[in-house]
């Protein structure tokens, strides 16, 4: 299996503070990879480096075959990204958002048109196409944002707490979209504070104080920590309780 992300001793410091401390890991093509850690563990900094938004202080990493230090612009073109905090423009309509992102990623007008129709149909929101995104329920927005992040057919999509605050039903519908994307060969790197969602990942890593302290399948990780569920693994690792 080929690796779509590969890091070696990746490090980022801010002054004296070491936010990311020599992390080395791989993400395989087509897997759902859970990137977990407590607040302040360094997840966001690592994600910023991997999405080409921040340069590492030392070490190296490649994403989709490109070097994060030398080719960040190439990386940005080939990845998708969504988070709860930033996803779509609330004061644009559904259709306008799709057109905007399609344009940013260099899709042709004809492609944008056909993809818009498919996307609206799939999410069953054709009737809402000309409504402002701000007027949609959060769950719909998140599903739409994810679909928009997939518009340019990226090989890998980064999802930063995509289901935070979403109702339990929509949260599951969202995960089915993730499964579906993975079944189509897309690699997904997901952060979440819902530990039940950690169970849905093929493999997970847990960051503690800038380092990756554990990386394995959820089942193997639970076995090696003698834990009932991922919540317990997380607590044992993050606080030693």
């Amino acid at each position, binding site marked *: 299996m080929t690796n779509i992300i590969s890091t070696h001793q990746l490090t980022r410091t801010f002054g004296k503070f070491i936010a990311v401390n020599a992390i080395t890991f791989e993400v395989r093509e087509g897997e759902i990879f859970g990137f977990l850690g407590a*607040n302040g563990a360094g997840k966001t900094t690592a994600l910023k480096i991997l999405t080409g938004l921040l340069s590492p202080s030392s070490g190296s990493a490649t994403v989709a075959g490109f070097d994060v230090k030398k080719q960040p612009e190439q990386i940005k073109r080939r990845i998708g990204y969504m988070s709860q905090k930033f996803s779509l423009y609330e004061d644009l309509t559904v259709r306008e958002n799709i057109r905007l992102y399609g344009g940013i990623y260099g899709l042709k007008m004809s492609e944008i048109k056909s993809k818009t129709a498919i996307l609206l149909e799939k999410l069953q929101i054709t009737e809402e196409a000309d409504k402002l995104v701000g007027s949609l329920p*959060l769950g719909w927005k998140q599903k739409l944002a994810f679909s928009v992040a997939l518009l340019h057919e990226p090989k890998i999509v980064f999802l930063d707490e995509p289901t935070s605050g979403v109702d339990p039903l929509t949260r599951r519908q969202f995960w*089915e979209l993730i499964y579906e994307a993975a079944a189509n060969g897309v690699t997904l790197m997901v952060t979440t504070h819902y530990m039940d969602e950690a169970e*849905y990942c093929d493999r997970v890593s847990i960051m503690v104080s800038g380092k990756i302290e554990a990386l394995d399948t959820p089942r193997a990780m639970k076995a090696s920590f003698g834990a009932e569920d991922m919540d317990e693994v997380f607590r044992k690792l993050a606080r030693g309780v």
Partner: protein
Amino acid sequence: MSKAKITAENLSKSYGSVQAIKDINLSVQEGEIFGLIGPDGAGKTTLFRILTSLLLPDSGAATVAGLDIVKDYKRLRTVIGYMPGRFSLYQDLTVEENLEFFASVFGTSIRENYDLIAPIYVQIEPFKERRAGALSGGMKQKLALCCTLIHKPEVLFLDEPGTGVDPVSRKEFWDMLRNLRQQGLTMLVSTPYMDEAELCDRVALIQKGEIMAIDTPKGITASFRQPLFAVRSDNMYQLIKDLREFEGAADCYAFGEYAHLKLEQLSESWKLSESSIHDFLLSKNHRNIEVKPAEPTVEDCFIELMKN
């Protein structure tokens, strides 16, 4: 019979054409931790803002600590503590300055009520010279809770204290709330995390501005009557899709490492269902199949109520 510290009768509020909350009725007893459980947009914050006198309802009435939320709003504000969902302390003041500021606004001092905040404050006291904006998420929560407590309120309103906070910090926060309850504080806590319902004395499940159920966590789960199974195999996505086709399946959704399968009704015996589910999955080429009866959780109940 203990007395009600919070009462709400038929509270409704609309913003233009959007009905944020609709005919909310609830009462919270003295010393209770009452959970308001629901997703973003359910109306939790609107209800909090009405009960803390920051927003007027369109209709209905409510009291907090025996005070009317409209007529007695000035006195009401002195006896409640309100921790809004968004971090709302002064980022450019230090930990200690924030605490001093909130104490002085309520005409008191850190020293006067130190005992109440001590168990929490000692954890952040080593950083008292640090600006609030430079604290980690968990520490910000602790400071915000101290600032909410510094005037010794009777009733605490905590709006989504756990959102965006990691599971370890969330657990610590709940431990603190339980300590506060022992001191007689009444608390209304909102959360989108269903598993936190179990930590409350009673909960209201809220969705689209309406309360779907109010009960103890045990009472909520006892209302779930259909047979429920936890099932797993090597391919979760395919498993869920296949189980939905199982004869008698009412619903199927991911639940941690298992899928939860809800059946229409108990046809013959649980054991029989178990083995027929197992055989069905074998015929669909699943591997490493495990099927067992599952205890319904508050989250299962929430999903069921949402679908009805």
